[in-house]
């Protein structure tokens, strides 16, 4: 049976990984290429790169780095950040990305999802959603979680999938950074309405949170996290072994 995926997320700005990295024995830990290789060797099932650069120079640097990563490691790569047009899809796919994640770009122009899905296939289009509870509703936030769009997250995700999004990354702003576990309630509400893979993001603090996620919500396909992996609080090989010992199907060989 298909395995649950463990996905580290790397935020890249001006060619460096941000959010801080703290590995013992790994020098130059802010190099996206070194870190990507490290994670791939540890058994990460996929990598997500977010380009959080604002400048044109930074964007060019990002695509150079992406090219280097994709020439060095051979696991699926998802790229997001600054994806506003079909040309942006083209730019990162040519550098070796396998999937492209849209967030604010799709909110500004909802036709981006169907356009990209027609050109590259549904499996290539990932809809990433930052959501937060507002007045008893899950609300979509834009611009890195700073702006309330007024959109209902469940409706937004449903329409995104109908228009061709092949995968959902759901990041709960309510649980993000708190390290108290994934937002099971919000994730369940999303799993109930879509039949494409759902990737849980926001809130992982320890191995038990991943156990809880995959046991409580069998429809969730993957867990994504950043700082707990970067800071070595959770080591991916240990995480995968513990999850497998707990009856969760994991990829354990080949790295």
């Amino acid at each position, binding site marked *: *049976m*298909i*395995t649950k*995926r463990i996905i580290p997320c790397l935020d890249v700005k001006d060619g460096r990984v941000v959010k801080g990295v703290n590995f013992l024995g790994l020098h130059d830990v802010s190099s996206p290429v070194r870190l990507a290789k490290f994670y*791939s060797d540890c058994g990460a*099932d996929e990598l997500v790169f977010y380009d959080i650069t604002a400048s044109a120079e930074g964007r060019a640097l990002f695509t150079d780095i992406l090219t280097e990563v*994709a*020439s*060095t490691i*051979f*696991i*699926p790569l998802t790229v997001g950040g600054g994806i506003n047009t079909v040309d942006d899809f083209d730019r990162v*796919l*040519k*550098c*070796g990305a*396998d999937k492209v994640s849209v967030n604010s770009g799709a909110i500004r122009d909802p036709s981006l999802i169907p356009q990209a899905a027609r050109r590259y*296939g*549904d*499996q290539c289009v990932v809809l990433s959603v930052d959501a937060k509870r507002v007045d008893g509703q899950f609300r979509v936030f834009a611009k890195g979680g700073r702006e309330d769009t007024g959109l209902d997250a469940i409706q937004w995700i449903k329409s995104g999938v109908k228009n061709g999004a*092949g*995968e959902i990354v759901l990041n709960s702003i309510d649980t993000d950074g708190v390290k108290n576990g994934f937002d099971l309630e919000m994730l369940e509400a999303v799993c109930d309405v879509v*039949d*494409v*893979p759902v990737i849980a993001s926001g809130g992982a603090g320890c191995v038990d949170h991943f156990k809880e996620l995959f046991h409580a919500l069998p429809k969730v*396909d*993957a867990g994504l996290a950043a700082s707990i992996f970067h800071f070595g609080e959770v080591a991916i090989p240990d995480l995968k072994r513990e999850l497998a010992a707990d009856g969760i199907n994991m*990829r354990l*060989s*080949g*790295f």
Partner: protein
Amino acid sequence: MVAIIDYGVGNLFSLRSSLAAIGAEAVVTGDPEVIRRADKLILPGVGAFQDAAALLRRDGLDRLVTEEAIGGKPLLGICLGMQLLFDVSYEYGEHRGLGLIPGRVVPIADAIPAGLKIPQIGWNALRFPKPSPLFRYIREGDCVYFVHSYYAAGCEDYVTADTEYGAYLTAAVQRDNVFGVQFHPEKSGTVGLDILRAFCEEGAVC
């Protein structure tokens, strides 16, 4: 030299990079002369069967690849490139393939219980119903990366690997010098590289 056949379908960046990583001499080409001179051929492909088959025919590459394969040159079809090896596909209609391996390409949905997600996206383990030289560097149970909504059926005699997704689905086939893998070896980490290495290594594959 290995020729990766470029017929305008999909992105060949990762495949080219992965062959470079294993030290295989490879070119991406649609040039019939280069394809004839190559020792081995890789037929990649993503997207819709009908479009890919039409593109392959447009340049006459369908006939060339078929001739080369019948002449004994090792050929590896990957993902949609593997599906093209069969007689027929039922993806949005009925479309003729290269007919190098008997079988038909049908929706996964016909084989698996309702409730499982389609496409199958992610890492899944391989089972080997019979040995294949393509898998000489890997072990049963190793995982590879799949992205597909259709699979090859009616090719039981040629199945060298399958994978369990509600039912056992064809993951790899071999008929003499013609090989096909449904998954993406260029995205399957070291296991995938070991499969490509087994195919690309100097000398005969089988």
